[in-house]
């Protein structure tokens, strides 16, 4: 009942009426007052939330209160009189920012987060031109370069967003505060390296880090070397979710679809061929869909030992997660490799043979919304004689930087198509980049193959949206197929715990580690806590799907050709060798 009560208060001479329970920060927004924040993040509609009220940047003055109050975590009360920009407030905020700067390196110009750094923005906003507390000791914190994530905790401002995400959103629990006072740092237990923990490299800590403390492992220099090396044939495969976000790096509105411009830019950058991971997404559906049907048929034939639910295996952070935490359940996920790895395997065999390019001369670069892909590309089981199927992976952000470095005016580029034959894709491939998308793509094919009927409606609305765990039931000729879609690893853990407890009643489960799926991936342009950006990307995904002439993976003519010319049949012997993998017990406990 209390939640419905409306409360009237005064903020900077504006009379504001908001529901009880509203925080001052949000109440101020309703009258156009944007109070600066740093530690606070609230990706509304997802579980990404951090409000420890600890940075003290958002402090405001409340009449009758002894000290300043954090607007992000102070609830409105009736008759409250709030000043968000009094001299006392401005002075305090500025001093707090100055204190942060005094424990922060001074190398903004060469920082990977330069111009995208929330601390830097505050410094500009507060007009800080001197650093009065400089010269003091700086806290000692570790640096680490993992295959996926670069950690430079000297730049940590202790907002603890990463800690919230790692614990509450992902339930991985690698990051927490250790030591105390000035020596506090956010790190794995005992200040271990990420590589010695059960970090999944989901990179969501990077996605929310306001400064340059957590960033991606940058492979752009290596890529530049390869692109300019005449002995190498360099081919690109951008993931489905990249094209819905890359435009943001160039000031385009979130949700702008830049597929054609991206293909042009890749060639302009010097890639010898611009292919598309969407092609491999269709291929994944053929393999995984067949595997689903095989297990279902066994189940329907009364096989009690068949492992159901089958779980998707496209998301590399999710794969790391179950290898670390659920080694007893490794038989459940599909053995299908991720689209990016399928692409690499096909490119370095089928296509390389076709083109007569020796494996060692061919460089396959994946462009991913993801940081875990960087780790995945380096997995030993994805190498042939030490040569990886995917040589390395760069993120959407890194591609943006490369394009800028190459003097390419991205916004004004003409559009072009991807190269053939690994560039053709359907709408099913396009929706791989969003939570529920892999499931929806699989259902389109599974339904038609199993029932022999044409789907009346291609849209499976029950598996769309940002809800943490979604379920749907699909009628397959009288058989009720129960499916579940989870995004973020904390939701995945709920599903896995239920499975372990024998209480999971689904046939197919899709998991993506990042909130919203790959559109919210850790390699995407920073959302800075703005959920509208994710929503716009999501809308773009479905727009792209609707605009495609073909929307079911099994209709992709180049996929059909690939099977005919090379692979034979889905889940056949060649597929098994090239497109499927196995999992390892990587538990560290």
């Amino acid at each position, binding site marked *: 009942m209390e939640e419905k009560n409306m409360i009237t208060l005064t903020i900077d001479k504006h009379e504001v009426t908001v529901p009880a329970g509203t925080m001052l920060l949000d109440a101020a927004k309703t009258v156009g007052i944007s109070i600066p924040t740093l530690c606070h993040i609230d990706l509304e509609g997802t579980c990404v939330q951090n409000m420890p009220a600890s940075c*003290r*940047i958002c*402090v405001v003055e409340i009449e009758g209160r002894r*000290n300043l109050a954090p607007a992000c975590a102070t609830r409105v009360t009736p008759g409250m009189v709030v000043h968000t920009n009094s001299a006392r407030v401005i002075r305090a905020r500025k001093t707090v920012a100055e204190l942060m700067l*005094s*424990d922060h390196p001074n190398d903004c110009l060469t920082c990977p987060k330069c111009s995208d750094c929330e601390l830097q923005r505050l410094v500009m906003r507060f007009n800080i031109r001197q650093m009065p*507390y400089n010269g003091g000791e700086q806290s000692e914190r570790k640096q680490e370069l993992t295959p996926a994530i670069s950690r430079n905790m000297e730049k940590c401002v202790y907002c603890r967003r990463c800690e919230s995400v790692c614990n509450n959103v992902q339930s991985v629990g690698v990051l927490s*505060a250790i030591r105390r006072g*000035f020596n506090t740092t956010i790190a794995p237990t005992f200040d271990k390296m990420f590589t010695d923990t059960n970090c999944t490299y989901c990179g969501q800590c990077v996605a929310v880090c306001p400064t340059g403390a957590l960033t991606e492992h940058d492979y752009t220099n290596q890529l530049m070397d390869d692109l300019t090396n005449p002995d190498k044939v360099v081919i690109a495969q951008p993931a489905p979710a990249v094209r819905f976000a890359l435009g943001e790096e160039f000031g385009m509105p979130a949700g702008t679809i830049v597929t054609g411009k991206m293909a042009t830019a890749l060639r302009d950058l010097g890639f010898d061929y611009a292919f598309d991971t969407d092609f491999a997404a269709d291929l994944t559906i053929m393999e995984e869909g067949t595997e689903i049907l095989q297990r279902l048929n066994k189940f329907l034939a009364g096989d009690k030992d068949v492992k159901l639910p089958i779980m998707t295996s496209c998301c590399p952070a999710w794969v790391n997660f179950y290898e670390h935490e659920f080694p007893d359940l490794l038989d459940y996920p599909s053995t299908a490799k991720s689209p990016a790895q399928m692409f690499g395997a096909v490119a370095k065999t089928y296509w390389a043979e076709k083109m007569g390019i020796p494996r060692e001369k061919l460089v396959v670069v994946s462009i991913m919304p993801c940081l875990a892909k960087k780790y995945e590309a380096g997995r030993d089981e994805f190498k042939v004689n030490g040569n990886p199927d995917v040589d390395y992976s760069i993120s959407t952000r890194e591609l943006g930087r490369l394009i800028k470095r190459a003097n390419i005016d991205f916004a004004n580029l003409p559009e072009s198509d991807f190269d053939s034959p690994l560039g053709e894709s359907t709408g099913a491939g396009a929706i791989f980049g969003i939570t529920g998308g892999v499931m929806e793509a699989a259902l389109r094919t599974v339904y038609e193959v199993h029932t022999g009927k044409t789907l009346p409606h291609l849209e499976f609305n029950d598996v769309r949206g940002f809800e943490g765990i979604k379920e749907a039931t699909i009628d397959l000729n009288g058989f009720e197929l129960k499916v579940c879609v989870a995004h973020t690893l904390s939701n995945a853990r709920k599903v896995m715990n239920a499975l372990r407890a024998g209480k999971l009643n689904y046939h197919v489960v899709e998991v993506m580690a990042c909130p919203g799926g790959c559109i919210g991936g850790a390699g995407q342009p920073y959302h800075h806590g703005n959920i509208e950006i994710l929503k716009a990307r999501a809308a773009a995904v479905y727009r792209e799907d609707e605009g495609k002439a073909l929307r079911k993976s099994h209709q992709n003519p180049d996929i059909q050709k690939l099977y005919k010319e090379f692979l034979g049949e889905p889940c056949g012997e060649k597929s098994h060798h090239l497109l499927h993998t196995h999992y390892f017990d990587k538990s560290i406990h």
Partner: protein
Amino acid sequence: MKILSINDLNNLRKRAQQALALREESSDTTSEQCCGLASGADHLQLLCCGGTGCKASNSHKIVDNLKAAIEENGIADKVEVITTGCFGFCEKGPIVKVIPDNTFYTQVKPEDAAEIVKEHIIGGRRVERLLYVDPKTNKTVSDSKHMDFYRKQMRIALRNCGLIDPENIEEYIARDGYQGIANALLNQTPEEVIEIIKASGLRGRGGAGFPTGMKWGFARGYEADEKYVVCNADEGDPGAFMDRSIMEGDPNSVIEAMTVCGYCINSHKGLIYIRAEYPLAVNRLKIAIQQAREYGLLGKKILGTDFDFDIEIRYGAGAFVCGEETALIHSMEGKRGEPTLKPPFPAEAGYNMKPTNVNNVETLANVPIILTKGADWFASIGTEKSKGTKVFALAGKINNVGLIEVPMGTTLREIIYDIGGGVKNGKEFKAVQTGGPSGGCLTQKHLDTPIDYEHLAASGSMMGSGGMIVMDEDDCMVSVAKFYLEFTCDESCGKCTPCRIGNKRMLEILTRITEGKGTMEDLDRLKELGEIIKDTALCGLGQTSPNPVLSTINNFWDEYVEHVKQHTCRAKQCKALVTYSIEASKCKGCGACARKCPANAIMGDIRKPHIINPFECIRCGMCKSNCRFDAISVY
């Protein structure tokens, strides 16, 4: 035996009171005569302090030796030895008190035990050399009631400390223990009990002074399947040990009060959060909890009613910030000991997000006696807004170091000069620090300030948990401020920016000043930064951490300026600012200084004046303290 009714309790009380009668009677009388078996006494008791301080001085061996001597003399049927809690007069510990003549032996050693038994207990002659000597009159005082240290004290929270055996619940019951909970359970509604606590004016003794009854009322107002009563025994102020003493000397008062609180807020589970480095207090609490369970005063159907309540002990690792109630709760939950923003207050969402009431030990120790003696009685003590008494840990440059309890409104002068016996070695009083790292330094001009929550705050300090450290002319106020800030920097959890970085920067500035490298701008910056940290920090620790600096800047501005402008420290405490030298006219060339100098900085031929090499000198002061001719000067 289980106490199943009020009758059981009263019968037990009557029986126990007989055992305690000797002590009760003698505490009401003053006897100049020395009692011994030779002078006709037929029953004597020897109370020996079993608090941590006296135990560290081997008081347990005194007890053993006393018992052995009694045994040896075959008088065990007439003489008892009882280990009690702290008497408070720690300066003079270990203490042995003889009942019924109230002879108060001080600084007793284990080897004195036989003499006390032989001379006093058997012979009826006081052991004069162990008696307290009044420094003012130079005469011995045998009865503690005649000592200045005790005369102005009023022991309410400490009422049983130094009187009863804390490991015997019956002695607590004899002192009207568990009458409060019995009466509440049988005759009063929870609301009525809360009203009594409200009317008494009792406020939180942990530092902030929040009205206890109101706090209970809030916790009562929230409905939940589980509620918790938490006793905050994470005493962290440097030098303060009143909570420890209460738990060591009168643990049942805490247990009874928690049970009352449980009844009032409808909770059935109590948790005592105690620092693990209080092993004696932990042990006494465990014994008391066990005995209370055996007597049916904890557990199911207390006193035969339908009320269930039990208590569990939780250990803290001694982090200062865990005295902050939200941090304490997180620590108990197994999380990092960090505060969170209030609201929500623990009364709404505390331990495991359930309604929780957190009270400090001393606060709780007042509750049972308020219930037995009444709210009016308690409210008649103290000042207008601060009722009752407050326990202080008196320390520093004061003659009578110890634990004292005085009515609110007592002045600093009374505490320092009457109870404390004045500044040590006849030195000049300079300041008194109250409230620990959150408090401030008060000066000469505050000596007549009545001590209560409001007056201390108005003077730029605070009550805190009751640390009171006296400083004399040899204390450098910049160094004092630096000491407290070092403590805060060490103990900051690091969560919020102002406390984590701001205090560190203040400490760096202070360090510069004590090294003679400070500037006048530094002083301005200290003040500004201090004000902003107070204004912006997340929890009570950060919001009060600049107090020692700000109050010394306010009260000892000249001293700061001297450090900055003249590069001098008038107290000769800042090593970088002092020079040791040998006055040739006084030096006999004995070489004592050179032999003691750890830095080999002193040179000279024997029987000729020595000199100190200033580049080697580490300013430790060893030479000065070892010179028999007062030849070493510091400037």
